[in-house]
């Protein structure tokens, strides 16, 4: 290889390296900005970073941050084929959690995630409905309004989608019941310096009536 070819090859290499280095810097600037976009959703960088990152480089590394969950969520469902005579409440996640505790590398963990996703959607639906409800209404009217807002929420739709599909999987020959309700039990975990037992911890319920079949 003569000297000029060698130099040409070297400068091609340097240019290429600088190009890839630039790409690398741009990529990480945008993906890191994406993860900090909640600090300022309206900024131009936040918009640009979202456009660049989703869906090819989607990432969320806020693992157990800023705080770990200090509330346990338990999802209960009950149903009535005729819309009147309801079954007993069933804790749908509990058997899957026990299975996952017994065998860490089993598919029950993923099955549990499906219900966990439905739980998250119900919580989001509830938070949205409470946020959008008219605060000046009386408690009774406000509750009615929240129920209507819930029924129209995209998050409630996603949770209902999950329940109706899981129903079809479990009972392929039975139509989705006329009455299907779910409830979330929110159990606050006792703080470390609190001498009160777990059984005495704080509880709250969220009730979600009228889950409809989604086709």
């Amino acid at each position, binding site marked *: 290889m003569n000297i000029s070819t060698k130099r040409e090859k070297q400068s091609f*290499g340097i240019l290429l390296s600088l190009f890839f280095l630039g790409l690398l810097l741009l990529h*990480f600037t945008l993906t890191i900005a994406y993860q900090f976009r909640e600090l300022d959703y309206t900024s131009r960088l936040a918009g640009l970073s979202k456009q660049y990152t989703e869906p090819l480089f989607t990432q969320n590394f806020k693992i157990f*941050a800023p705080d770990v969950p200090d509330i*346990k969520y338990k999802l209960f469902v009950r149903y009535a084929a005729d819309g009147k005579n309801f079954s007993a409440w069933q804790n749908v996640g509990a058997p899957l959690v026990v299975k996952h505790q017994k065998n860490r590398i089993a598919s029950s963990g*993923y099955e549990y995630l499906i219900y966990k996703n439905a739980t998250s959607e119900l919580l989001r639906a509830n938070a949205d409905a409470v946020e959008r409800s008219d605060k000046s209404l009386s408690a009774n009217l406000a509750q009615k309004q929240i129920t209507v807002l819930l029924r129209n929420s995209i998050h409630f739709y996603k949770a209902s989608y999950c329940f109706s599909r899981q129903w079809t999987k479990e009972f392929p020959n039975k139509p989705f019941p006329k009455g299907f309700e779910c409830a979330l039990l929110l159990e606050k975990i006792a703080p470390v310096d609190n001498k009160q037992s777990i059984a005495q911890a704080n509880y709250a319920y969220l009730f979600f009536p009228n889950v409809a079949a989604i086709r």
Partner: protein
Amino acid sequence: MKNKWLSYITQQAEELQHPQAVFLYRKGVYLFTLLITLLQLPVAASLWGKDASIAPAIYEGNSILQSLNLLSHPTFASYYPAIVLLLILAIVASFFIRSQRILAILIFFCFSNLYHRSIPIQNGSSDLLHLQLFYLVLMDEHASHKLGKIKTLSVCLTNFAFIAAQVQLCVVYFISSYYKLQGTHWLEGTALHYTLLNDEFTLDFVQNNVANMELPLRLLTWSTLLFQILFPVCIWIKKLKPYLLTFGIALHALIAMVMGIVDFGLLMIVMYLLFASEAWCLTLRNKYFRLHQNVISIEK
């Protein structure tokens, strides 16, 4: 300083910096992908099928991105077994075929389709795996056997993709520790107490015997936080690297076994291969080759 930078930049285009690590890293990530795909098989229909339990997310616009989310379209949804089978076959083939680029594209395509179909239940580890499979498409451990400008291009791409994969791991710790510092549980040292009392992230024995041990749990919480803060900076210091990696492996093994987040724990340990020395990787690679030869001779 200027010369040092110029020499660094030139080196990235002239020779592969981590051929052994790229080789092992690829095998590690693919094995991990195979493992989690097999784990999801019993619930495959609920995750990816036509009647999956997760509402599909449709991406408007860019057709390339839409091709990575085919299973969310009703027309393609019933073909999910083909995507799963293709993924498994491509991973198995990657252990026997030398040319990796096409297989890497195929593996990324299949995994991406499964990932996007079930994106609402994906956690940080699937996001990270998706990114790593993308970086692996750009890497070629045999780039130095190519000729001319193609070789320069391939070597350069491999080196920078490898740096990207390393930086990505640092970004995970950086983002995670930054947000943890914004909360109270991690600074107070109570994060592990709450986590181990949550049925979802604990074991019976741990919940009853360990979750209320105040001092050890506070120390473990703070050391986890300190580790995550230090990792992105200290991993580049040669003397500190072995200590960080040892602590990290122990931490992620605990996360996998006790908290049950097996996918995240295992992937992070696999990703530590990115920081292994070339000599160590070569020893491991030679062992792999001996095993590979034995498998092939048994098959013959």
